[in-house]
């Protein structure tokens, strides 16, 4: 399928429906897509619940989420399609549900990826961040479980981390509802700063594809 040869306006629709035919109405309805990505059991689903009206099952063990869920994220008067994913340890998948998340990253053009991290365990979680940064994916780091960091008596130098990584870093505690407003604000800043719109994103995407 050579997309450049597709003469009609169908080009936009083609990319959108490439790998994820289910819930296609959500794709069209809210063309800007934000995905929650991170290692298993870091709080992606908990964050998904606090950012959308949906509810996905949240448990305290890795492997709770096994499929992709979409929800509506409202920021001010704008709406985004928020996507919850199964956890991955690295971009090279190990189990079936990791493949699901990985394929989303590989084949769908996302406007923003919120990389959810267990702040208590930076040394483990940051290796995935490095992979995502290498891939030049648009990233915001959400440092979750900050309440537990405090319980342990630790403190985080957020500015230094932000400087070193070069991406926005937002400390949150999803189950307590802390930091969510700040996260939403930084998402909006990011989206407007990059002047992102669905046509902008799709033309970028088009330029990177030759033959599939």
């Amino acid at each position, binding site marked *: 399928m050579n997309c450049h040869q597709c003469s009609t306006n169908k080009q936009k629709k083609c990319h959108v429906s490439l790998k994820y035919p289910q819930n296609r109405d959500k794709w069209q309805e809210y063309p800007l897509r934000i995905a929650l990505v991170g290692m298993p*059991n870091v709080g992606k689903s908990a964050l998904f619940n606090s950012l959308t009206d949906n509810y996905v099952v949240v448990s305290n*063990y890795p492997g709770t989420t*096994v499929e992709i869920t979409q929800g509506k994220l409202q920021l001010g008067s704008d709406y985004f399609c928020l996507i919850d994913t199964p956890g991955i340890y690295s971009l090279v998948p190990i189990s079936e549900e990791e493949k699901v998340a990985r394929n989303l990253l590989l084949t769908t053009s996302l406007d923003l990826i919120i990389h959810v991290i267990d702040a208590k365990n930076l*040394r*483990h979680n*940051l290796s995935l961040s490095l*992979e995502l*940064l*290498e891939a030049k994916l648009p990233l915001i780091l959400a440092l979750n479980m900050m309440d537990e960091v405090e319980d342990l008596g630790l403190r*985080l130098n957020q500015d230094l981390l932000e400087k070193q990584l070069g991406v926005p870093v937002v400390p949150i505690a999803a189950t307590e509802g802390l930091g969510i407003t700040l996260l939403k604000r930084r998402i909006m800043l990011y989206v407007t700063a990059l002047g992102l719109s669905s046509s902008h994103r799709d033309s970028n995407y088009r330029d990177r594809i030759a033959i599939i």
Partner: protein
Amino acid sequence: MVYPVPIETAITEIESLLSESNCWGIAPSLSKRSIALLILQKDPTLWEILHKYPQQYQAIQKVVNQTQNQFSEPISSAIALSRQQIALNLEEETIIEPIQEKILLSEWWHKLTVYPLTGLPILLLILYLGVYKFVGQFGAGTLVDTIEGFFEEVINPTVNQLTNQLIPWPILQDLIAHDYGIITLGIRYAVAIVLPVVGTYFLMFSLLEDSGYLPRLSLMLDRLFKSIGLSGRAVIPIILGLGCDTMATLVTRTLETKRERLITVFLLALSIPCAAQWGVILGLLSHYPSALMIWGLIIFLIFLVVGYITDKMLPGNKANFYISLPPLRLPIFKNILKKTYLRMKWYFWEIIPIFMFASVLLWLGHLTGLFEVIIQGLQPITKILGLPPQAAPIFLYGFFRRDYGAAGLFDLQHQGFLNGNQLLVAAVVLTLFLPCIAQLQIMLKEQGIKVSLLIVCFVFPFAFSLGYIVNSLLTNLGINL
């Protein structure tokens, strides 16, 4: 970020090879560098796509081999090590540790649950309080009796009366009311017998889920599971299967190897009863404690033995076990309630139409006389199993839905048709019996039609044979429960 020099060189070479044919469009969202790194880490999907570009494939293959020769360990390890080092440095720079290390209470709890000396008694305590007392006695006993009683004393007579008045034809009356009506049987089974049991189970399960106990249980049981070819990771789908096998079959996706997934799906279909089944059985057998223990022992032994044999028969390697242990946390009550409500809602909307449909089928069966014919056909089987002829419909129900069969068993027992021995035999056969339709659907999706058919063809005769064995043993040994 910089990797060891040979790897950086390889990355540059692969990037240029990919640019040549423009085939780095294989993963358009990622940067070229990232794709090159994934290729070096032997990512299976990307390599498969590379096959389409034979020239680049060969050239890249050469680069990878040359690079690998410069390392004693796999390239993936070298890459991972570099990343880990940078991550570690970042953490040391940005996290400020306190002067004195804080030891949390949860650390103490963690040790208690993981080491078998204290862990096993804790597990037994959870089984006794959570499973036996809460689901068995409260759920399947008190709750079911109360709601069932309400149906028998209030709802059923009212429905019978109303239908007799509103609908003049007895045939149609039978559809809604009387013995096999949609409301008097179908909805009663669903609301009075199945839902209280499933609800109490999911309440207890949600508590375990949110506390962080389950991964620790996986750790403790890993050794046991290794003996049947599974790793501790399979503990979670299996315990979920004790609530609903359909959900559990879906969760087998989290298992690493195809082999593990197959063994787990098979065991889920054969010897893991869902909450509706074992909850009702627990409630019924609580009057015959020795029968209850024998039933539990039989099912557990079958689980181990069949698992062991399947493990030996299937080619392939054993699974590895790794799991990140989350901290033990106090469950958030709101989340537990929400989860239980959601799961019950899902379950409810699944069984109500099916149970109603079953009632319609039964009604048709009675009307056409087909029901009696099938029951006649099942009579010899029930006779061999030492069961009364009234037990024959149970297997018809169980063929349709596990929980429907269990509810039928409940009815039969309350009508006084089964003695202790017969209850045990019926319980064993019903537990081992076929998976329900929903589970079969998911099984087909996850494992394919060949595997699913094989499993069904094994389970069906196996369940009956075992019932026969149990019955013969009981009669020959002269045991009366």
